[in-house]
């Protein structure tokens, strides 16, 4: 290893840089391909489902089915009615929050903030009520038209009587949209008066999108119960069952999971017990979901005698998602700097006061995010509910937590497992609904994560 001239030293090295470089480029292309293939395959999945499912979701079924159904079905009713409604109601709904307070300001300049807000509400509220009344009128006109078209007896214009005949979805639609829309207007106006411009514009935007989508969706699929004929089958019981179960699951799992996280982060000493719990939690997260189903079957369905009810399903699901909630709540708690706690202790707060007033408010956003993610896991889980014996054919809505129920993924499984192509098609439609719910939840989680992220 003499200190010879550099050129002599170099002879032992082969000048392969160009080859190595092209290897490296090839490798990069391969890596790019790998991610492209993954994305394309997963994209194909989405496209496949969208194409398969769109037919049932956005029209009243395929041509074959329409024939099988015997032709005559009113399908185009929502559109003209909705259009007529939109032509005037939407512009008002969008513009009112913007012009309302401005109008006020120009009429009575120098109004104090509180008065401005109060008067804003006083002006907006009647407007909202007015819109609501108009909406109900149009909706009932549509219902009457519809009833005549399908020949419901006694549909002479009596709204209440008509409700008895109309499908649940229409009632839901009437209530939800008839109430949500005015509420949205109110909220948008309030945000505007609070100088929170972004939400005040977001709400009308969301309302427009929801309304446009709604115009094109065929209500029958969403508002019908399962049926032996693909064209008649709908996901009404599955969607309501899913929502029902989600609410109960969250109500059980969130307090329990957050409580455990608070204990582990804020109370537990670093001893064998807390270590054991911690390891246990991470192992529970890896237990196959169907095993939770068997646990639920034995404990909730048989020992506690909840039967195959919403409650049993929600309890099982709560146990399943609890590890996720615990871990994410722990992470949220860890983002609160110790200096914050010390400052609170330094002024003499008790431990619970420190947690309640100084730790939880800062960690709560992160905990909620974790909860949403846990719920989006629960919403897609099928196996544990099958294990506890959730039914696949439910032609009624659950009234109480002890009723039988079904959920979207089970409905999908049931339809996919059938040989007829028609059921596969509506399975895809149901998947679209499921995925849209999931996507909305994920989007909410992402937005919340960004909004609540605090840099210390």
């Amino acid at each position, binding site marked *: *290893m003499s200190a010879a001239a*550099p050129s002599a030293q*170099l002879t*032992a*090295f*082969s000048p*392969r*840089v160009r080859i190595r470089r092209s290897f490296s480029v090839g490798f990069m292309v391969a890596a790019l391909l790998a991610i492209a293939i993954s994305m394309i395959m997963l994209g194909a999945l989405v496209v496949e489902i969208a194409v398969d499912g769109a037919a049932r979701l956005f029209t009243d079924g395929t041509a074959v089915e329409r024939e099988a159904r015997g032709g005559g079905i009113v399908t185009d009713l929502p559109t003209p009615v909705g259009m007529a409604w939109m032509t005037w109601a939407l512009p008002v709904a969008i513009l009112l929050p913007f012009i309302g307070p401005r109008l006020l300001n120009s009429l009575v300049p120098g109004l104090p903030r509180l008065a401005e807000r109060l008067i804003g509400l006083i002006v907006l509220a009647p407007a909202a009520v007015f819109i609501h009344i108009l909406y109900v009128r149009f909706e009932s006109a549509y219902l009457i038209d519809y009833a005549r078209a399908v020949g419901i007896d006694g549909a002479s214009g009596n709204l209440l009587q008509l409700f008895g005949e109309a499908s649940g979805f229409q009632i839901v639609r009437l209530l939800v949209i008839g109430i949500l829309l005015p509420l949205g207007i109110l909220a948008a106006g309030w945000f505007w008066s609070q100088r929170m411009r972004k939400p005040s514009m977001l709400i009308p935007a969301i309302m427009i999108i929801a309304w446009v989508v709604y115009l094109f969706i065929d209500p029958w699929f969403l508002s019908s119960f399962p049926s032996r004929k693909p064209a008649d089958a709908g996901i009404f019981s599955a969607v309501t069952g899913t929502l029902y179960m989600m609410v109960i699951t969250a109500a059980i799992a969130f307090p329990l999971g957050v409580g455990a996280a608070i204990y582990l982060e804020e109370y537990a000493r670093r001893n064998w017990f807390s270590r054991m719990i911690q390891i246990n939690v991470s192992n529970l997260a890896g237990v196959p979901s169907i095993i939770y189903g068997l646990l639920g079957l034995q404990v909730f369905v048989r020992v506690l005698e909840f039967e195959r009810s919403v409650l049993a399903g929600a309890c099982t699901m709560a146990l399943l998602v609890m590890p996720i909630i615990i871990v994410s709540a722990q992470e949220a708690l860890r983002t609160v700097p110790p200096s914050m706690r010390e400052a609170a202790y330094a002024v003499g707060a008790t431990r619970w006061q420190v947690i309640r007033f100084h730790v939880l408010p800062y960690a709560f956003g992160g905990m909620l995010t974790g909860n949403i993610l846990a719920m989006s896991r629960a919403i897609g889980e099928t196996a544990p509910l099958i294990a506890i014996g959730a039914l696949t054919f439910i032609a009624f809505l659950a009234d109480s937590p002890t009723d039988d129920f079904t959920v979207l993924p089970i409905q999908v499984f049931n339809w996919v497992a059938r040989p007829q192509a028609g059921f596969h098609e509506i399975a895809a439609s149901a998947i679209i609904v499921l995925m849209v719910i999931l996507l909305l939840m994920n989007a909410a989680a992402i937005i919340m994560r960004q909004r609540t992220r605090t840099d210390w």
Partner: protein
Amino acid sequence: MARNFFTMMKSTAPSATEPSTAERTVAPPPPSMKQDAAAGVGVHLDPTLEAVRHDFTEEVEMALELRDVSAFYGSFQAIDRITLPVPRNRVTALIGPSGCGKSTLLRCFNRMNDLIPGARITGRIDFGGRNLVDPNVDAVEVRRRIGMVFQKPNPFPKSIYENVAFGARINGYSGDMDRLVEDSLRRAALWDEVKDELDKSGLALSGGQQQRLCIGRAIAVQPEIILMDEPASALDPVATLKIEDLMRELAEDYTIVVVTHNMQQAGRVSDYTAFLLAGEERVGRLVEFGPTQDIFTNPLDQRTEDYITGRYG
């Protein structure tokens, strides 16, 4: 025989000749540019930049020649038109207050800045007749020939042997690997301490040993230039002394450029010193360059004197 750097640069203006020009000796300066060499008085060569350059007191080849090198991070300019020679087989120290662009400049020498998104270099760095800044020059090859040792020791999580052999392996070394490892570790003054446990993880060594391992790792690919960015700043005085001795020893065969915050260290190990300073806009500029002796005993710029005597950051 002393020569002025500026005249030298003129004589080596971009030529289309072969890389063998690297081994040329520099031509004597044209009479018109004759400087007050004997008096040792420097002159401002670039009126806009006002860098002071001492005359060289010895005849020496240049390993690298920088010409108007600027570096940018996105839209932020870190260093501004630095013109600087790096003498072959000498230790050149880069000194200056924190944030003045020493590391940036050093990383220009082996194109490490390519790895930072948005980083850009302009100007010319002449290395064996080729311009390192030229995007057509292969950065991988450049880094093979211009090695680097970092501030914090960063051995790979592999055995000591593999740490040293790694660079040689990827560069297609066909010789006796055991000998190369042994020689490199000997040169890095680490062999005696680790010769019985070459299979031990490089991370299991002490900080000073890790740094010598990193030097040995750099030597093993037999570079022409070794860049060191504050190689001893994370080490205790004894380990620091070892590294300094090592630098002096390595200077016999390699060109070394070292960034240091330690004035004594710069005085002890370097033959040449460049002083950089960032103005208010945080853009680093070369203030003074010359033999270390001259810079330390007879700084020509007030700012250099202030810095060396400790009146600056």
